[in-house]
C-alpha cells in the first residue's frame, strides 16, 4: 500500500523564505544607509560636499562625450566642457553677445583688411604653471592648417587663413587670403603647445588619459569616466577671477525623466533638456519646492523649408521637387495659410515665440522683422486668392489644380523623432487641405538622405544660431551647393540666389559692426521674400535648477536667456552656491531618517537571525529523533 507522506517540508521552505527576505531587506537598506554621503533625504543638498565643505555644482547631461580633444569633439556636451577648460581669443558679452576680450585683450585689422593683430594677455597661465603666450595660439592655428586630423572639428575657422605667426609673446598675427568679418568670432580653444606638441596622431588622440588636463580656462578637468561623470575643479588663478563653486560635475542621465527625478531629489543641481525639457516636465517642476524653471528665449528657429529645385554648383539639376513650388506666389500662399499662433499655443504649449525673420530675437543686433506691407500674416482668404492668381484654381472636388489639370499635392519631410514635426504636420494638412492643397507627411528617422538627394517638396527645418550669423547665412549661398548630385555639401536646402549672394559677400568684408548688421538684415529680408525659408517659431530653451543649491546664475542674454550651452562660460563661472544655512536644515532631516532606517535594518536583521537560529535548533532536534 502506498501511503502519502504528509508534507513535513514547511520548515526548509520557511527558512529559505525568511533567509531571502531578511537578506534582501538587510542588503538593500544597509546599502542605503552605509554608503558615505549617500542621502536618505528626499532633497539632499549636493552643493555642499559633506566631507570637506567644498561646494559642488552637479549638471545632468545625456550626451556622451565624443572626445576631450578640442581638435576632434563635435558634440555640445564636449564643446561646453572645453569652453571651461581652455580660453579662446575672444569671448561674447553675456548681455548682448558682442565680442569682448578673452585670451586676447584687443584685436585690429590692417588697412588692407587682410592682416589681423591680436594682443595676448600677460596674466593667463596654464595650470602647470607655464605662461600662456601668442606662441600657443599660433601653434594651435598652424596645427589646424597643416594637419587634417587637427582640422576635424574647427577646420572651417582656418580655411581662409594664409599664415599665422607669433612675432612676440604677446602678439599674434593672422594673415587672410580674403577679408572676413568674423575674426572676433573664432570659436577655437587655444591649447598649450608644450603639452600638445608631443601628440603624434591628432585624429586619434582623445586627451582623456592623463589628469588633471593642462588648461587655462575657469575650470581644470580633473577626472573623467565614460558615461559616468566629468569632473572639473575651479581654477583659482583664472585671470577673470575664480569661479564661486569649488567643483563642477557633469553627471550622466540617459533618460530625461530620470534626470528630472534626480533634480527633484537634489542629486543634481541643474537639468536641461535635449534641447528642452518637455512641457509636461516643466509643468511638473514649476510648483516643486526649491526648483526654478528657466523658460528662456531660445537660440533656435523652427521653419518650413521649400525645395527650390536641387542643383549642383555647375547648375546640374537633380531630385524631384514639386515644380509648383518654384512659383513664389505658391510658396507665399502656403505660408499665409499657416496659423503660427496656434502652433505656439497648441504644439509648443506656450514654450516658443512666433517666428518672423531668420535670426531669433535674442541676437538683437541681427534680429529682423518684416515691415507691415511685407509681412505674410495668417490670412487663409488671401492665400486662396494668391493661389487663384498663380493659376491654381479649385476644381469641383475642392482640389487646387494647375493648368495641366494635375492636383496640387505636396510631400513634407518630418523627423520621426520630433513630436513637434508630427503635430505641426497634422495642422498643415488641415489648413492646406481647406485651401485645396494635399499634403503627405513623411515622418522618417533620418531625413538627411532624401534631403541631400533633393527628393522632397517641403521639410521641417531648424538651426541653432551663433552670436555671429555668418554660418547660418553661408548655408544659403550658391557656394554651399554640392559639387556633384546628392553629394554631402554645406547647403541647407539648395537655395542659390544672386541677390542674396551679393549681400553675403558684402557683409563678409564689412568690418563696421553697424553696417554689417544692416547688410545681414537685408539678407534676411531677401530670404523672407523669396519664401524658400519661412520661420514659424523660435522654441524656448526650457531648463531647471535647484535654488537651494544655486543662489544665482548668469543667463545669456543676461536679462532673459538660457544657462546650458551658452557661447562662453558665463553660467558655470558665475554660479553662486546657495546659503549653507538652508542646506543644513535639510541635512538634519536626512540624519533623522537615516537613524530611523538604520534602527529598522537592525531590527529586521536581528529578528531574521533569531528566527533562523530557533528553526535550526528545531530542525536538528527532529533529525536526532
Amino acid at each position, binding site marked *: 500500500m502506498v501511503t502519502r507522506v504528509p508534507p513535513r517540508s514547511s520548515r526548509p*521552505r520557511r527558512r529559505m523564505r525568511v533567509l531571502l527576505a531578511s537578506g534582501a531587506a538587510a542588503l538593500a537598506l544597509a546599502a*542605503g544607509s552605509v554608503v*558615505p554621503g549617500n542621502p536618505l533625504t528626499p532633497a539632499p543638498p549636493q552643493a555642499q560636499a559633506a566631507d570637506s565643505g567644498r561646494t559642488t555644482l552637479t549638471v545632468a547631461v545625456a550626451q*556622451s562625450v565624443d572626445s576631450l580633444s578640442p581638435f576632434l569633439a563635435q558634440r555640445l556636451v564636449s564643446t561646453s566642457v572645453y569652453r571651461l577648460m581652455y580660453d579662446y581669443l575672444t569671448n561674447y558679452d553675456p548681455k548682448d553677445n558682442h565680442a569682448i576680450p578673452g585670451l586676447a585683450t584687443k584685436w585690429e585689422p590692417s588697412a588692407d583688411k587682410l592682416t589681423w593683430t591680436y594682443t595676448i594677455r600677460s596674466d593667463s597661465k596654464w595650470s602647470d604653471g607655464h605662461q600662456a603666450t601668442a606662441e600657443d595660439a599660433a601653434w594651435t592655428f598652424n596645427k589646424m592648417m597643416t594637419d587634417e586630423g587637427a582640422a576635424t572639428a574647427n577646420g572651417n*575657422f582656418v580655411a581662409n587663413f594664409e599664415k599665422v605667426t607669433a612675432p612676440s609673446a604677446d602678439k599674434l598675427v593672422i594673415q587672410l587670403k580674403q577679408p572676413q568679418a568674423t575674426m572676433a568670432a573664432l570659436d577655437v580653444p587655444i591649447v598649450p603647445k608644450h603639452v600638445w606638441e608631443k601628440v603624434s596622431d591628432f585624429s586619434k588622440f*582623445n586627451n582623456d588619459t592623463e589628469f588633471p588636463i593642462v588648461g587655462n580656462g575657469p575650470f581644470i578637468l580633473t577626472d573623467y569616466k565614460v558615461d559616468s561623470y566629468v569632473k572639473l575643479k575651479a581654477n583659482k588663478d583664472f585671470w577673470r577671477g575664480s569661479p564661486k563653486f569649488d567643483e563642477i560635475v557633469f553627471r550622466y542621465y540617459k*533618460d530625461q525623466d530620470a534626470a528630472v527625478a*534626480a533634480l527633484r531629489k537634489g542629486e543634481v543641481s541643474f537639468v536641461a533638456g535635449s534641447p528642452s525639457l518637455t512641457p509636461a516636465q516643466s509643468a511638473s517642476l514649476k510648483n516643486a519646492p526649491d526648483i526654478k524653471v528657466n523658460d528662456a528665449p531660445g537660440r533656435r528657429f523652427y521653419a518650413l523649408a521649400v525645395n527650390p529645385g536641387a542643383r549642383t554648383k555647375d547648375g546640374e539639376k537633380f531630385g524631384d521637387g514639386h515644380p509648383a513650388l518654384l512659383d513664389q506666389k505658391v510658396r507665399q500662399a502656403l505660408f499665409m495659410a499657416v496659423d503660427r499662433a496656434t502652433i505656439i499655443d497648441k504644439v509648443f504649449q506656450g514654450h516658443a515665440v512666433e517666428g518672423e525673420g531668420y535670426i531669433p530675437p535674442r541676437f538683437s543686433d541681427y534680429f529682423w522683422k518684416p515691415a507691415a506691407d511685407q509681412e505674410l500674416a495668417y490670412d487663409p482668404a488671401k492665400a486662396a486668392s494668391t493661389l487663384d492668381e498663380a493659376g491654381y484654381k479649385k476644381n469641383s472636388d475642392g482640389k487646387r489644380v494647375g493648368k495641366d489639370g494635375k492636383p496640387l499635392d505636396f510631400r513634407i519631410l518630418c523627423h520621426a523623432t520630433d513630436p513637434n514635426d508630427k503635430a505641426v504636420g497634422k495642422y498643415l494638412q488641415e489648413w492646406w487641405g481647406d485651401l485645396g492643397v494635399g499634403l503627405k507627411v513623411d515622418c522618417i*528617422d533620418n531625413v538627411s538622405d532624401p534631403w541631400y538627394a533633393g527628393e522632397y517638396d517641403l521639410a521641417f527645418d531648424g538651426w541653432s544660431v551663433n552670436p555671429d550669423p555668418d554660418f547660418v547665412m553661408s548655408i544659403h549661398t550658391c557656394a554651399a551647393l554640392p559639387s556633384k548630385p546628392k553629394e554631402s555639401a*554645406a547647403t541647407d536646402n539648395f537655395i542659390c540666389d544672386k541677390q542674396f549672394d551679393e549681400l553675403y559677400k558684402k557683409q563678409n568684408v564689412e568690418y563696421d559692426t553697424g553696417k554689417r548688421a544692416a547688410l545681414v538684415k537685408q539678407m534676411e529680408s531677401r530670404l523672407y521674400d523669396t519664401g524658400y525659408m519661412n520661420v514659424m517659431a523660435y522654441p524656448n530653451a526650457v531648463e531647471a535648477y535647484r535654488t537651494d543649491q544655486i543662489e544665482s546664475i548668469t543667463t545669456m542674454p543676461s536679462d532673459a536667456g538660457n544657462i546650458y550651452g551658452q557661447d562662453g562660460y558665463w553660467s558655470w563661472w558665475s554660479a553662486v552656491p546657495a546659503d549653507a544655512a538652508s542646506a543644513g536644515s535639510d541635512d538634519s532631516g536626512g540624519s533623522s531618517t537615516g537613524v530611523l532606517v538604520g534602527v529598522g535594518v537592525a531590527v529586521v536583521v536581528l529578528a531574521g537571525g533569531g528566527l533562523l537560529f530557533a528553526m535550526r535548533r528545531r530542525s536538528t532536534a527532529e533529525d536526532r529523533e
Partner: protein
Amino acid sequence: MSTESTPALVKGAAGVDSAESDGPAPAGPSARGPRSRSTAAYLRYVAGKLVGAAVSLFAVLVTSFFLFRLIPGDPVKQMTGGRQVSTEQIAAMRREFGLDLPLWQQFTEYCGKALTGDFGTSYQFRAPVIDKISEALPATLLLTGTAFVLYTVIGVWLGARSAWRSGSVGDRAHTALALTLYSVPSFWLGLLLIITLSVGIGPIPGLFPTGGMESGNTSGFDYVLDVAHHMVLPVITLVAVEYARTLLVMRSSLLDEMGSDYLTTARAKGLRDDLVRRRHAVPNAMLPTVTLLFVNLGTTVAGAILVETVFSWPGLGGLFYQALSVPDLPLVQALFFVFAAAVIIMNTLADVIYPLLDPRVGR
C-alpha cells in the same frame, strides 16, 4: 578531446548509468564497449554543434555589415549636422572613415579585420571599437550577471513551489504576479521604482540613487558598497521582468513530472515530501529550465538596453543606443556581433551540456 578523459565527463555529469545499457550493441570492429562508443557519439554531436555555431557566427558577421547599411542616413552628415563644417571637412571625414570606398572593398576590409578581432575605429569616439566595448562590458556583465543569478534562483524556486502545490492560492498568486510583471515594460517599471524608491513619495524616503553606477567620490570597500547601492533598482527591475519565464518553465516541467511512478516509489520508501521534491522531482524537471537559462543568459546582455538607459547604467546597452543614433557603423556592427555571439555561444553551450544531463539527447 582524448577518449581517456571523456568517460569521466559522461559519468560525472549524466549520473544515469542505466541509459547506457539501453543503447544498441556496439557495431563494427570497435571493442571499446558502450561507454567509448557513446563518448565518440557525443564528440561527434559536439563537433556538429561547434561547426553550426561557427557558421552562425560568420553569418552574423556578414549580416551585421549589410544590415546596418540598409538604415538610411549618412554617418558623416549626421555627425556634422547643425555644425559649422566646410565641404572639405566633410570629404576628409568620409576619407578617414573609408566611406568613399566601394561597398565591396569596405566589406572585404571589414571581414578581413574582424576575423583577426579588429572591428575598426568608432566614428564618433575616435577610439578602437574593441576598447569602447571593453570599457562598457564589465558594467553590463555585473548588472545582468547579478540579475541572472537572482531571477534564476527566484524563478526556479518559486516555479517548483508553485507546481508542487498547483492550484493552491499561493500558486495562483505567484503565477499571476509573475505574468503581470513579465508584461510590464521594463523602462516603465524602472521609472516607477525611481519615483518611489529613489525620489521618495510620502512616507517612503528616497533610498537609492536615480541613476549611474557610482557616485564618483568613493574608493576601496566604500566603492563596492556604492556600486551595490546603485545596482539595487536596476537589478530589481531586471529580475522582476525576467523571473516569470523561468518560473513558468520550471512550473510546467515539474507538473509533467508530478504523476511519475518514480515519485510514487520514492514516497513509498517513506521519504519526506520535501526530499521527494528536491532530490527526485526537481532535478528531472530542471532539464528544460537549463536550456532556457542558457538562452536567457545570452539574451539578457542585449535585453538590458532599456534598463541601462533608464538607470543611466554605463554598459553596452547605452553604447548600442548611441551607436545606432549616428549610425556609428563600426561600433554598431561590433555590438550586434557581440549580442548575437552571446546568444549563439550560450545556445551552443546548452546544446553541449544537455546530453550530459540527459543522455538520450544527441545520441
